[in-house]
């Protein structure tokens, strides 16, 4: 709860900073505020608290909120440079802080009302941010598509919530669980579960509800795309798993069948479409769809280790994504192109950037000793334990396709002739972000137990 209060107050202060001409000190203040929020969150570990039956800050919520705060911290360091050139830097920062409030609500809800409010607080801010490059038609299109698809999905989510309410007479997760598990499994309840599944699949970009993701990710400003691929995705999957494992685990037979097929379609559409892309940004967008497929395997398995597998996967995926998007941001600004060809031969003049990019690509592809390997390993391990061997085999084939397009970037950097030997200027904050994320990717790949034991 302290996390929510700190983040909200910080957001309001950020809004006032514009009036009081407090722009210079704002960025350090936000970083300090995030660090304070992180400290207060971690202090609640092993000290579960329920607030009026609405919010439940158990270990699951604590672990996911602190991971979200860490990613947000790295994100602010990465994005500061971009927003300083904007006229309305405070608005952007305030929107991000408010959307973080939504993300924390999404991982700690104990009532469907809070799930709905959390998703909306997060989404509405991100709609604005996606369209925030006002004069750029691509950014407008991206924001508009995100808004349309997002509110369309909200409609399905709400209809699902309503049907569940109609059957159980409550929005409370524990009451719903009692009703559903004691045989109150009418057609209306199942329809509600399926509609919730559709709504949440939209938000977490699972095929066949993923079609907005590549367009939105490509059109939005790169920093905002980073935010969508990391924090938003993590919160969406945390909420997805929290809802379905608390309420609908007993009737898993009814909906895992559907999700099973959705996972397979997602894995193939994501990986195969990523192969065809020339633009690195769009490739990363499709790869993000593919990663959603891997994470959803843990939801299909619905076993005791699913939560920690999802946590490890989303965290390591987010860290590697921040590296990849930061480098894309630096290189695309330097060369004025977001294509993979912009990376050709940059390794000679920029050894640090190329090394960080290589580690990120290896991690996204799932190759040891990077963290991405153990992320996939834990997911597959969980699935095999629950008896989904065929699903794991298909996912491994999809991962092999993935290796192809991630290596295209590495090959472009190291084995293509360079176009120019001018080193790309990397700002000090970007440098720090790249060093932190690269070290974390390797460290978590060698010692996964560092964070696996928390959940």
């Amino acid at each position: 709860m302290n996390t929510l209060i700190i983040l909200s107050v910080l957001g309001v202060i950020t809004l006032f900073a514009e009036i009081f001409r407090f722009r210079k000190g704002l960025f350090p203040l936000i970083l300090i505020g995030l660090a304070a929020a992180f400290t207060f969150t971690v202090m609640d570990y092993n000290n579960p608290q329920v607030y009026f039956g609405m919010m439940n800050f158990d270990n699951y919520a604590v672990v996911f909120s602190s991971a979200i705060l860490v990613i947000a911290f790295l994100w602010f360091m990465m994005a500061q440079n971009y927003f300083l050139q904007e006229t309305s830097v405070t608005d952007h920062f305030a929107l991000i802080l408010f959307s973080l409030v939504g993300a924390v609500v999404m991982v700690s809800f104990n009532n469907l009302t809070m799930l709905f409010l959390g998703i909306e607080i997060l989404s509405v801010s991100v709609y604005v941010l996606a369209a925030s490059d006002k004069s750029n038609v691509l950014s407008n299109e991206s924001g508009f598509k995100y808004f349309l698809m997002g509110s369309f999905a909200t409609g399905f989510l709400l209809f699902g919530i309503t049907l569940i309410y109609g059957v159980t007479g409550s929005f409370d997760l524990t009451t719903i669980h009692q009703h559903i598990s004691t045989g109150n499994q009418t057609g209306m309840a199942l329809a509600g579960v399926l509609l919730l599944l559709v709504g949440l699949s939209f938000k977490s970009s699972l095929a066949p509800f993923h079609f907005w993701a590549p367009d939105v990710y490509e059109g939005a400003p790169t920093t905002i795309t980073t935010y969508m691929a990391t924090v938003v995705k993590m919160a969406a999957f945390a909420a997805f798993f929290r809802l379905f494992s608390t309420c609908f685990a007993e009737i898993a037979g009814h909906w895992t069948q559907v999700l099973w097929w959705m996972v397979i379609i997602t894995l193939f559409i994501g990986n195969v479409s990523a192969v065809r892309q020339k633009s690195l940004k769009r490739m990363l967008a499709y790869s993000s769809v593919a990663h959603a497929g891997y994470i959803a395997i843990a939801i299909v398995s619905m076993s005791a280790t699913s939560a920690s597998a999802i946590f490890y996967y989303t965290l390591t995926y987010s860290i590697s994504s921040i590296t990849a998007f930061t480098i894309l941001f630096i290189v695309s600004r330097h060369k004025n192109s977001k294509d993979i060809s912009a990376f050709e031969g940059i390794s000679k003049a920029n050894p640090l950037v190329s090394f960080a990019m290589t580690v990120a690509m290896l991690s996204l592809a799932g190759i040891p000793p990077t963290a991405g390997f153990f992320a996939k390993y834990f997911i597959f391990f969980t699935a095999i334990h629950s008896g989904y061997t065929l699903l794991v085999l298909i996912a491994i084939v999809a991962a092999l396709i993935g290796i192809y397009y991630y290596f295209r970037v590495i090959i472009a950097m190291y084995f293509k002739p360079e176009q120019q030997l001018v080193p790309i200027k990397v700002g000090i904050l970007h440098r720090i972000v790249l060093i932190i994320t690269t070290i974390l990717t390797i460290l978590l790949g060698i010692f996964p137990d560092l964070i696996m034991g928390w959940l």
Partner: protein
Amino acid sequence: MMNQAIHTIPLDWYTLLSSILFCIGVMGVLFRRNAIIIFMSIELMLNAVNLLLVAFSAYHNDAAGQVFVFFTMAVAAAEIAVGLAILVVVYRNTKSTDIDVLNRLKG
């Protein structure tokens, strides 16, 4: 009093009416090309849900459903405000509210 008036119509009818309204909204979003009409269709979806929530709330004798409706209405208002703002920005750049002009991102 109010509850009794609602109870004179069976719950199934409310469910049916809301489902039909919801489907009309979905069809509107999928098949209309004008952004303003699409916004209206999304509103129709959300209001179909509101109607059903109120009906369930009355039949369960539970106020939570009606409180939820307030949240839905507030959020829908915020969403439409943001949506219209984005639409204004799009209109300034493209001089059109037809969503078919938004086709630059593909591949």
